[in-house]
């Protein structure tokens, strides 16, 4: 119990430090007293700094936190449901559904109606979010239907992976027939970004990721039992189908939201649950979910910071950074598992 509290406290301290760093560091470094002045609403705050902070860095920070925690929680839920340490939010095929939805709007519609998508401007952004949500929702419905009708965890996993293949094949077909400019835009979308949202939308995004992430703690008893396998869980009074339905809905919703607003962010959802398990060393999902929330936010902020390292003129695509942090974690998991097997 002690270790859990220490782990949680340390993560929260780390989170606060990273929030500060995300606000101060960048192509222009903004001193702390200026940030204080801006947030306290002092008259003497530098207007340029104020604009940078409130219009760019603060929304980015909020989005990075929200996306990180949502993916961390969704990944944890999937790893426990599928009892597979390499599962992540993407195994349900929801991000593939999003990608397909976006590809359809970006590549197909423009093509059909005879204009490039980029010329749409602000309306284009909105169309991307809506199409992405529609694609994700369609896949989520399909997965929930399958889990309800067929049952069994493996069938859900297989269908999720197959949807991924199907959508990438459709996307490549769409790409083949689309003008270069649209394809380029689609590729950029696929690399992910935390800086697509205006301040008001960023706050809204944070709220709709934080609330379901916190609500996921209500599933902690079901998750603790599911970790024992379906039979033990049934014997301990769990209604497996209902629990599975709720877990998939929660993880699916979180993944769908993040993918729609930030693009398909890779690796965060696989890596964060493992970091949470490593530092809190418990099997109780109540603490694991809380830890995944904080550490997810930490990871999101860290990736965001690295993406605009001081000295680099242009912002790096977020997925190149997440892979850089996530891939070593995944390799380390396999390494550790192999060592554990040898001990047995």
């Amino acid at each position: 119990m002690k270790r859990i509290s220490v782990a949680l406290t340390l993560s929260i301290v780390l989170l606060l430090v990273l929030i500060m760093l995300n606000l101060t560091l960048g192509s222009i470094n903004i001193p702390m007293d200026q940030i204080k002045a801006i947030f306290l609403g002092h008259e003497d705050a530098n207007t340029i700094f104020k604009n940078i902070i409130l219009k760019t860095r603060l929304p980015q920070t909020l989005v990075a936190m929200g996306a990180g925690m949502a993916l961390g929680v969704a990944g944890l839920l999937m790893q426990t449901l599928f009892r597979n340490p390499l599962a992540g939010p993407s195994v349900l095929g929801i991000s593939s559904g999003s990608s397909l939805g976006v590809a359809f709007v970006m590549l197909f519609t423009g093509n059909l109606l005879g204009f490039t998508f980029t010329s749409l401007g602000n309306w284009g952004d909105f169309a991307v979010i809506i199409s992405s949500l529609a694609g994700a929702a369609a896949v989520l419905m399909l997965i929930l239907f399958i889990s309800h009708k067929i049952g069994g965890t493996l069938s859900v996993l297989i269908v999720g992976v197959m949807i991924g293949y199907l959508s990438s094949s459709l996307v490549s077909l769409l790409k083949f027939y689309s003008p270069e400019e649209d394809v380029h835009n689609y590729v950029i979308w696929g690399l992910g970004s935390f800086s697509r949202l205006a301040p008001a939308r960023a706050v809204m995004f944070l709220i709709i990721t934080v609330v379901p992430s916190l609500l996921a703690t209500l599933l902690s008893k079901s998750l603790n039992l599911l970790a024992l396998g379906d039979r033990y869980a049934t014997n301990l009074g769990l209604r497996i189908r209902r629990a599975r339905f709720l877990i998939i809905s929660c993880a699916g919703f979180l993944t769908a939201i993040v993918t729609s607003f930030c693009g398909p962010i890779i690796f965060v959802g696989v890596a964060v649950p493992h970091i949470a398990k490593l530092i809190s060393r418990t099997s109780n999902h109540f603490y694991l979910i809380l830890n995944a929330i904080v550490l997810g936010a930490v990871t999101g902020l860290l990736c965001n910071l690295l993406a605009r390292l001081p000295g680099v003129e242009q912002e790096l695509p977020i997925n190149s950074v997440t892979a850089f942090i996530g891939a070593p974690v995944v390799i380390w998991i396999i390494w550790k598992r192999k060592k554990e097997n040898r001990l047995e």
Partner: protein
Amino acid sequence: MRKELLRIQDLSIGYGKGKRQSVVNKRLNGCINSEELVCLLGENGAGKSTLIRTICGFQPALGGEINMQNKNVLKLSEKELALMASVVLTDRIVVPNATVEEMVSLGRSPHTGTMGILSREDKKKVEAAIVQCRIDHKKKEYLTNMSDGEKQKVFIAKALAQDTPLIILDEPTAFLDLPARVETIQLLRTIASESGKSILMSTHDLDLALQLADRLWLMGKEKPLIQGSPEDLLLQNEFQHIFQRKGIEFDNETCSFKVDNAFAVTLPVQANGFEFRLLQRAFARKGVNVVPVDKKHDDYLNVVDNQGKPFELIKEGNIVVKEESVEKLVDATMAFLN
């Protein structure tokens, strides 16, 4: 007279529905009384695991009834069933970072609320279960660091913490070494005798079951379930019927299986009880039937009270072989016999 806890009536077990149904065993009848340790024995394929899974509610019955405390188990919800019977399965589960205490606490799940928070009474029951299974010194240990025998005790403690009138175990001794087997079954024996719970376990450990079970359920392929105390079943010679195979014989006297060797040669032996039995076993493997010396033989084996080389082979009145170990004696004798 003990109270009846569970009764199965005309139970048919198996898989599938309608025309695709495959029946594993049918028309099974049996009962478990309160505070009884019941062992389920039978050859592979007789449906031991299927019966256990059916009683636990993991798979539907194809027909018949299971009654427990005046309720039909087959119609109960997961929640109600969770308060009637707890299980220990053969599933090898790995929960990362789970400690003994956390695992045993999960046994209280049917009694806790939505968030699974333990009340003071829940904590007491968890502690008591851990103490009863003698793993209190490992309470904070991670499950992944424990041996198979200790892990089995953790799962038994989890079932105890669930606090149900019946505990069902599917081959709890299957992966364990001999001392851990004996310890596990002894623990179950104590639980049945002292905590007022009934236990149903399937096992292949015939000798341990015969010594410690109050009642046995014997299952054979396409045969009715036979139940009774071990001694009554021995008297009725039921083991012979259930485990009947060519070349294997159940010896009611020693309560164990004997390989029915085909003997080509007979060899008289002059020896005391213990040495005689040892030689009998050693020669049986070579197809030689060892019999006691009853009349005057010319060729026989003799065991003398000699510290150095007690084993002698006598041929036509002369000692032809004198050996210190049974192994050497058997080799030398076989050379003579061939």
